[in-house]
């Protein structure tokens, strides 16, 4: 592919993230769709959009499956072929990739991709139960390993092998809350201190409450088209130049390493090669900080630093706004929120804002090349995309 654009993002939408009482998932998705339509007045959604791919993880939240058709209808796209993709928290990363494939194949000139989750009307115990479904049942869940517990197992081993500390992890939470404080759509728009983070309740040692992402309602979407059609819709498209996706064992215990996610390494290698860029050329990234340790491991898996040196990036402020490679300027899953099915395309939404110069107070100066890293479960799915400004 040699770095040529695969597809172009010509518009994007994001609902408010947070506790959206009184709305069903389909209504929240309509908010995101409306923003994408309004951003792109030339687009005639009913006529132009030839398919919808939408990420959604859990039927349990609203006792509602068959989300593809439902969301197509509520987005005003009745009769458009609509497919739900499910890959746990990477559901809409997978939807984005499906959309890229649909456009690249020549089957569709314009597609909508997106995702949604409505979670906050359920009790924490219920949400915990539903999220755990992304991990192995007969050996992990059955032995009392919770979902945060899986990332805690990675953290313990990372601390053992490389000397990473609980403070390093807390610094990631502090950084992402700082970024989120500048995002009007973030669920928690307030800064936290290192003391807040380190003193918060232990969930699964060494992970504490402030190492965990939030329970969130929200939706996100993008409009993709062929690069040659992009200028018809906008003067300022963002190109996707690399796309990678890989899978791994559902059980963490079966993997060779607990301090690195093989699927993320494979997916990023594919995306880098397709985009013809090196990790050192990435100007900013949105990575899957479902837990702080996941962001630290992402630094290493994506090649932003060597294995075991993730702590140096956070300690030196390199991934903070203004640093060498700002990570999670949106606030990440930690502060912006994590409506699981919406997260993959919400990361792409932030990249769209950044690379079109619309990120306001959290704008990364001269951002040209960006990357998104979306994980499912404890890393049994990873989806990585590389983006380029026009």
């Amino acid at each position, binding site marked *: 592919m040699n770095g040529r654009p695969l597809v172009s993002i010509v518009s994007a939408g994001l609902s408010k993230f947070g506790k959206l009482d009184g709305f069903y998932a389909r209504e929240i998705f309509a908010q995101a769709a409306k923003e994408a339509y309004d951003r792109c007045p030339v687009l005639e959604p009913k006529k132009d959009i030839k398919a919808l791919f939408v990420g959604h993880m859990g039927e349990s939240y609203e006792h509602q499956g068959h989300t593809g058709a439902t969301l197509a209808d509520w987005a005003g796209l009745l009769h458009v072929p609509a497919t739900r993709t499910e890959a746990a928290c990477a559901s809409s990363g997978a939807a984005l990739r499906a959309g890229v494939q649909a456009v690249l194949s020549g089957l569709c000139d314009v597609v909508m991709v997106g995702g949604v989750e409505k979670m906050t009307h359920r009790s924490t*115990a219920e949400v*915990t*139960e539903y999220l*755990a479904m992304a991990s192995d049942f*007969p*050996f*992990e*869940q*059955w*032995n*009392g*390993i*919770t979902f*945060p*517990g899986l990332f*805690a*197992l*990675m*953290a*313990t*081993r990372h601390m*053992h092998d490389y000397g990473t500390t609980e403070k390093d992890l807390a610094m990631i939470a502090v950084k992402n809350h700082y970024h989120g404080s500048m995002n009007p759509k973030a669920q928690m728009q307030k800064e936290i201190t290192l003391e807040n983070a380190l003193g918060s*309740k*232990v*969930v*699964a*040692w*060494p*992970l504490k409450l402030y190492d965990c992402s939030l329970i969130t309602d929200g939706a996100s979407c993008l409009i993709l088209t062929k690069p040659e059609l992009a200028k018809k819709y906008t003067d300022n498209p963002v190109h996707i130049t690399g796309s990678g996706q890989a899978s791994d064992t559902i*059980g*963490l*215990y*079966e993997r060779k390493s*607990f301090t690195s996610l093989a699927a993320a390494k494979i997916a990023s290698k594919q995306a880098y090669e397709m985009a013809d860029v090196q990790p050192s050329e990435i100007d900013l990234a949105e990575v899957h900080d479902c837990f702080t340790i996941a962001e630290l491991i992402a630094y290493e898996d994506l090649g932003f630093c060597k294995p075991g040196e993730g702590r140096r990036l956070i300690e030196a402020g390199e991934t903070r706004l203004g640093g060498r490679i700002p990570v999670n300027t949106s606030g990440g899953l930690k502060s912006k929120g994590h409506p699981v099915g919406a997260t993959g395309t919400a990361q792409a939404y932030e990249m769209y804002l950044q690379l079109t110069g619309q990120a306001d107070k959290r704008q990364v100066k001269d951002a040209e090349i960006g990357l998104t890293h979306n994980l499912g479960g404890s890393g049994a799915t990873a989806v990585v995309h590389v983006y380029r400004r026009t």
Partner: protein
Amino acid sequence: MTEQPPFTIEQFCKNIGQGKVLGGKCKKCGKIQFPPRPLCDNCLSKDFEWVEMPSKGKLLTYTIIYVAPTRFQQMVPYVVGIIELENGLRLPGMIKDVELDKTKVDMPLVLEFEPCQPATQWPQWPRYHFRPA
């Protein structure tokens, strides 16, 4: 030749219930599938034989669970980890009879079977856990 029990998760659990930890050794490539699987992930053969696993191993990593799902809530805080058995194969499990602050990566552990519970609803599988060796 007597028919072998199937190389399934359910059979693994039945074996646990009988106080045996067994894996499935692929007759074609020799890889031990543990827990057993009906299809070898290495050579795609489905020809296996049962082999016994060592009950001793060491702790590769662990966490202490403070927030647990309903069925484990009365046990918090409890330790769970991933254990490497003496033959290099791995199993996740709860670690009992250990002081929280004495739990360490690399500590030697031994597998212990728990009494079977009557199967009233799915899933009700026999349990095992680990304790310091």
